[in-house]
C-alpha cells in the first residue's frame, strides 16, 4: 500500500540542527544529511507531534534517532551528521487534523529502505496516512450468499469474509474491525460536509475481540469471518461448511423477528454500532462496500467523537430536496483495507477515497441478476503466491468466482 507517488514533493528546509549519532569504533566519513518528513497535503489544519526518525545503518546496525524537527509549511525538517553508508530509515509521529468539525489524531509511519547517504544528501519521507499498517488484507468477500440447491431462492446465512496476513511477519488481528459503508455505490449523493477524502462512513462496525495479542495471524494465514458459523450443508447441500470459522457475527436481540444463532464454539465479533436494530447481513447485491479498520479508540469514545451528521440532495423522479442523515466516520488513516463493491451496470460512485480503493469489483450485473448468487469476489495472487494489493479492486480482485470455501 504505497501511496507516496501521490504526493507532491516540496522544497527542502533551511534551519539546521546538529545531532550526534552513536557510532562504533570504525571510522567512517561523517556526512551531513537533511531529513524531512512531509505530511499528507490533503489534510486540513494538520500538525505533527512526537515525530521521530530512526536510521539504522545496514552494515553496522548502528542506529541514530532524530526528533528535533522544525516546521516549514507542510514539511518538518532536521539536519544531522551521520557516517556515510546505507540506511534503513523509519519515521513515526502523530498527526492531528480536522475532519469536518471534529479533530482527530492518528499515528503515522513512513519508511525508506537501503537509502545511500553521502554528503549533503537530502531525504524526504512522506507520511502516508492510508498505509498505517501494511499486511492484513481482505482476501475474499462472499456477500451474495448461496441458493437452495436447484433453485434461485437465496439462502442468506452463509455469507463470509476472509482476512489474510499478506505480510511476511506475524500480525495481531485483535482490535481490527470489519465495517460496512453507509453509502451505496449505486446511489450517489452530494454530501455536506463531505468527509470522503479523509474518512469513510460506516453503517455498522464489528470488532475482532482480544487484548492485543489474542488473535495472532502468521504470515500468509487467514481468518474466516462467518455471518453464521455452522455447517450450512446440513440445511442446504449447495451451501458451505462454516462451522470452523474463526469468528462469527452475532446480534443478540430479544426480538423473535431478529433471531440469530450463536455457535458457542466460534467466538463472536463485538458489535460496536449498527444503523439498524436487526440481524446483520452483507448486502447481497454488492451495493455496499466493506473495509478492515484498526480502531484507535474505545467504543464509547468512538460513539462520542466520530458522529457524523450530513445533509445530501436527493434527486428523485418527483423533484429535488435536501435530506439529512447521520452515521459514523472513521479516518482513512485507520483503514487497513477497503474493497468497493458495486452492481456492475448500476455503479454510480465509489464510497471511499481513491487513496483507499481506486476501483471496484462486483458479482451482480444488474440489481435483479439472480446469477450473482453463489459467486464471490476473491483477491488475485501474484506469481509468488502473494495477494495483489494496489488499492484498486478492479485490478486486485477476480469477480464472480466460486466461493473458495465451497466444496
Amino acid at each position, binding site marked *: 500500500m504505497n501511496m507516496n507517488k501521490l504526493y507532491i514533493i516540496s522544497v527542502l528546509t533551511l534551519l539546521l540542527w546538529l545531532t550526534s549519532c552513536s557510532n562504533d569504533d570504525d571510522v567512517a566519513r561523517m556526512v551531513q544529511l537533511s531529513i524531512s518528513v512531509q505530511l499528507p497535503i490533503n489534510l486540513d489544519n494538520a500538525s505533527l507531534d512526537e515525530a521521530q526518525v530512526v536510521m539504522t545503518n545496514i552494515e553496522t546496525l548502528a542506529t541514530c534517532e532524530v526528533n528535533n524537527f522544525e516546521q516549514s509549511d507542510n514539511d518538518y525538517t532536521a539536519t544531522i551528521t551521520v557516517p556515510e553508508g546505507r540506511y534503513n530509515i523509519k519515521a513515526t509521529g502523530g498527526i492531528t487534523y480536522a475532519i469536518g468539525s471534529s479533530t482527530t489524531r492518528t499515528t503515522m509511519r513512513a519508511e525508506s529502505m537501503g537509502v545511500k547517504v553521502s554528503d549533503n544528501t537530502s531525504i524526504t519521507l512522506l507520511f502516508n496516512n492510508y498505509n498505517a499498517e501494511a499486511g492484513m488484507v481482505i482476501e475474499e468477500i462472499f456477500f451474495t450468499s448461496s441458493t437452495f440447491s436447484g433453485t434461485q431462492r437465496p439462502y442468506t446465512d452463509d455469507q463470509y469474509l476472509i482476512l489474510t496476513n499478506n505480510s511476511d511477519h506475524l500480525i495481531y488481528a485483535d482490535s481490527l474491525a470489519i465495517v460496512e459503508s453507509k453509502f451505496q455505490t449505486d446511489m450517489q449523493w452530494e454530501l455536506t460536509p463531505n468527509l470522503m477524502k479523509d474518512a469513510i462512513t460506516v453503517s455498522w462496525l464489528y470488532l475482532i475481540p482480544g487484548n492485543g495479542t489474542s488473535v495472532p495471524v502468521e504470515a500468509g494465514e487467514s481468518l474466516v469471518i462467518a455471518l453464521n458459523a455452522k455447517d450450512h450443508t446440513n440445511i442446504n447441500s449447495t451451501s458451505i461448511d462454516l462451522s470452523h470459522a474463526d469468528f462469527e457475527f452475532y446480534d443478540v436481540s430479544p426480538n423473535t423477528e431478529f433471531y440469530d*444463532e450463536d455457535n458457542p464454539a466460534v467466538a463472536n465479533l463485538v458489535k460496536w*454500532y449498527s444503523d439498524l436494530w436487526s440481524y446483520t447481513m452483507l448486502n447481497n447485491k454488492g451495493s455496499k462496500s466493506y473495509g478492515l479498520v484498526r480502531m484507535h479508540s474505545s467504543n464509547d469514545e468512538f460513539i462520542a467523537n466520530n458522529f457524523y451528521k450530513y445533509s445530501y440532495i436527493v434527486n428523485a423522479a418527483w423533484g429535488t430536496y435536501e435530506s439529512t442523515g447521520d452515521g459514523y466516520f472513521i479516518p482513512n488513516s485507520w483503514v487497513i483495507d477497503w474493497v468497493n463493491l458495486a452492481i456492475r451496470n448500476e455503479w454510480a460512485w465509489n464510497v471511499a477515497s481513491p487513496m483507499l480503493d481506486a476501483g471496484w469489483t462486483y458479482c451482480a450485473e444488474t440489481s435483479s441478476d439472480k446469477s450473482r448468487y453463489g459467486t464471490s469476489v476473491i483477491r488475485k495472487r501474484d506469481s509468488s503466491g502473494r495477494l495483489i494489493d494496489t488499492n484498486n479492486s478492479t485490478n486486485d480482485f477476480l469477480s464472480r468466482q466460486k466461493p473458495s470455501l465451497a466444496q
Partner: protein
Amino acid sequence: MAVTIVANAQTKITGLVLDKATREPMIGAVVSITGGNGVAAVTGVDGHFTIMVPNVAATVTVSYVGYKTLVEKVHNGEYLIESQTNALDEVVVTAQESKHLSTTSVIGRQAMDHLQPSSFGDMMELIPGGRAQDPHLTNPSTISLREAGGGDANYSTSSLGTSFMIDGAPISTNANMQYVSGGTDSQSLKRDFTNQGVDMRTISTDDIERVEIVRGIPSVEYGDLTSGLVKIERKRGGNNVTARLKADMGSYLFYLGKGLEWQPRKLSLNISADYLDSRIDPRNTLENYKRFTLSARLHKAWSTSRFNSSLSANVDYTGSFDNDKTDPDLNEGAVDTYKSSYNRWALTTSFSLKPSDHDSWFKVLNAMLATSLDNDNIKREKLVQLRRATIAATSMQPGESDAVILPYSYTAQHRVEGKPFNLFLKVNSKLQVPSTRISNSLLLGLDWNVDKNYGKGQIFDPTRPLYPGMSGRPRDISKIPAAHTLSLYAEENLKTTVAGNTLELVAGIRGSHMMNLSSRYAMSSKFYWDPRVNMGWTFPEFSVGNEVGFVRLAAGVGQHTKMPTIEHLYPEPVYIDLIQFNYYHPNESYKRINVMTYVIDPTNFDLQAARNFKWELTADVNIAGNRLSVTYFRENMTSGFRSTAVYAPYSYKLYDTSGIDADALDGPPSMDGVPFEETRELVAHSRYSNGSQTKKEGVEYTFASRRIAKLHTRLTINGAWFRTVHRNSVALMERPSQVVGDKPIPYVGIYNDIEGYTDEMVNTNFTLDTDVPRLKLGFSISAQCLWFTSNQRQPISNYPSEFIDLDGNLHTWQPAMAEDALLRYLVRNNTESMYDLFKVPFSMNVNFKVTKKFFNDHLHIAMFCNKIWDYTPSYERDGVTIRRHVTPYFGLEMNIKL
C-alpha cells in the same frame, strides 16, 4: 275524497301539490284563492293543503319559488306545478344539485344510463370534484367526499364515516374484520378495507332509480356518520324485462331484471340478477374480481278510509370475490394464492302508515327492520421459503415457553372467517301542527343498531406462520360481544314566507349511545349529541327580461358522530415474545430457544367516537332556467381513528448459555442453574386512538344551463376547490433504529407531530350534452380539467417534547440533550426542503359518451370513451422533466327493455 257542500257555506278543498316532472310532493307551496286576501294555505310535509272556498267555481293560485305559477279551478286532488328549470321530458345526464337545503348531489336513472357504470364507484365522477377514473375493480374502492389527496389507513375515518343506505337500510361495516393478521404482502394489504367503510365495488347500479349523495349536513335521521351520506333508492314496479350487457377494457357485466306490477292490488315485485367479471388486465387470468348479486323486492300498499299504508320487503344477496394467484411458472412452482369471498344476505322490511285525513297532526309513521348476515372468507396459501434460521413463538398463554424452529420450506395456510351480522331497527313519526301560514313538521324517531361477528376470525397454525417472525396468534372473533347503538332524534322542519321571501329551517338533534360496553370504556356512559341546522332564505323572484330569476342563500352547521367499529373496540390481543434463552447446537434437536411471552390487551378504553364538525354556506342563483349553486364548506374532524404505537418496557431474563457443555447433552439443555441477567426492553404494540385530524375546506360549484332548444344541448359546469389537511392530533411515540454496542438506543421519543400533509386541488368539468329526441340519440362531451393538484408536508418538529427510558420513566426534553451521545438519536432529520410545495400543473381529459335507442326504445346501445383526447403536458420540477401519459378507456353496452 269527500266533498261536502253546504248551502251558503264554505267548501273544504283538499289538494296535493306535486312537481309535474318528478311527482315529488312540494312542501311549502303557497296556495291563494283568486280574489281572496293573501295566502290561503301553505302545503305541509306531504304536499297537502286544505282550504275553504266560498264557491266551487273559484280559482286558486299555487306558487312556489322556481316554479311556474299555476292557476287552476279549485278541485280536490292533484295540482301539478312545473319547474322553471326543467322541462317535463327533460333528459338529465349529469348530477344535479338537490333543491333541499343540505348540499346534495342527485343522480337519476338517465344519468346512470348515460354514464354506463360497472359499480357504484363510477358515479363519483359526477359529483363536484370528481373525474372519470379507470375502474380498478381488483382492489376495494372506498368513497372520498370533499377530500384532496388520499390519507393512508390512519385517515380512513372519512370513508368509514360515510354512511350508505339502500332503500333506507344501512350497509353496516362495523363488524368487518376481514384482514390478514400481521399481513405484510401486497395481496393481503391492498384488499384490506376494514375500518374503511363500504367497498363500492359490491354495489351494482342497474337496480338503482336514484342516488342522493349528501355532502353537506344530513338530517339527524341519519347517524353513525362523520363525512357524508349516500342514499340509494331502487326501482319499484314496472312490468318490463330489462337486460344489460356491458363490456369494457377490464370487465364485462350482465344484468337481468324483471318487474311485476299489479296496479289494482297495489302490489309489485322486482327481481334481478347481475354478474360482473373483471380482470386486472384482460390477458391476466390469475388476478380477478367477480361480483354476483340477486335482488327481490316486494311492495304492497293498502288504502282504507282512515289510513294509507305500505309494506316493503327486500331480499338481497351480494357475492364479491377477489382472486390473486402468482403464476407458478414464474415462481419456481411455489404456491402463492389469495382468495377473498364476501357473501352478504340482507332482508329489509319497512312499513309506513299515513292517515287519510290530511288535517291530522299525525302525518306518518315509518318502521323498518333490516338485517344482514355475511359469510366472508379470506384464504391465503403460500409456500413459505425461508432464507435464514427463523423461529416462531406459539404460546397462547403469558409466561415462559420454548419457541419452535421453523423448517426452511413449508406451506402456510391462513384463513380469516368473518360472519358479520347487523340488525337495524328504526321507528319514526312526523307530526305537523296544522297551519295555513307555516309549513311545519316535527320528526321524532329512534333507531337501534346491532353489530356482531359470528366468525372464527384468524385461523392458522402458529407453528407454520404465513408471516414468519411476526408474533401473531389465531383469534376467534365470535367471542367478541355485540355492539349496540341506540339513537334518538328530533327535528323540526319549518317553511314560511315573509314578505315575499321564503324562510326554510331544518333544525334537529340526534343523541347516540353505545350500549353493551363494559364500564371500563369511557364511552359506556356517554351520550353523543349531534345538533344540526340547515337554513335557507329565498329572496323574491325577479325578472330578467321576460324570464324569471330567484336567489337562495343557505347556511348549515352541524356535528356528526361515528361510533368506533368492533375492531376498534376489541382489537386482537398482542403477543410480545422476548427471546431470553438462545442455545445453539450443531444437532438441531439439541437447540433450545425459550421466550418470555406477554399477552397484551391493546384495547384503548378511553377511545371515543370520531366527530366531525361541519359548516357551509351556499348561494343558489336561478335565472331563466339556468342554475348556479356554489357552496363554501369547512369540516374539522380531530378525533379520527388511528392506530398508534405504544412503547413500554418489558422485562425478561437474558441467559448466558456459554457455560453449557455441548458434548454432555443428550437433548435440549435445561435452563435450571443457567446464569441470567434480569433485563428489559422497550417494545411497541399498536393501539387505536382518536389521533387523526382531517380538516377539509373547499368550494363546490355546479352550473347547469337550460337546454338550448335549437341545439338540443345543455351545458353543465361543475367542479371544486378542495384543501385537505391530514395530520396526527395526539402526541406519538417514535424510537430510533440504531444500535450502540449491542444494545438498541434505550429511549423512545414522544413527538407532538409525526406527520402532516396539506393537499389541494382545483377542477372543473365542462359537459355538453345533446339530446335529439327525434333521432333517439344522446351524446355528451365532457372536458375534465384538473387545474392543479398540490401536496405539501407540514413542518414537524425535529425534537421530541418528552421521552421515556428503559424503565418507562418519562423525561422532559432539554435542548442540551441533543449533544448527548445516545439521546441525540431522538433528534429527527427533517430539513426545510421536505416542506416544499409539490404542484402538478394543469391537465385535461375529454370524455365522449353516446346512447342511441332503436326499435321503439326496446334496444338501447351506448358507448363511452374516456380520455379520447387529453392535454397532459410534461412539466419541470427542479430541472427534471416529468412526463405524463394518459391511455383512453373504452366501453360498450347494449340494453334491452321488453
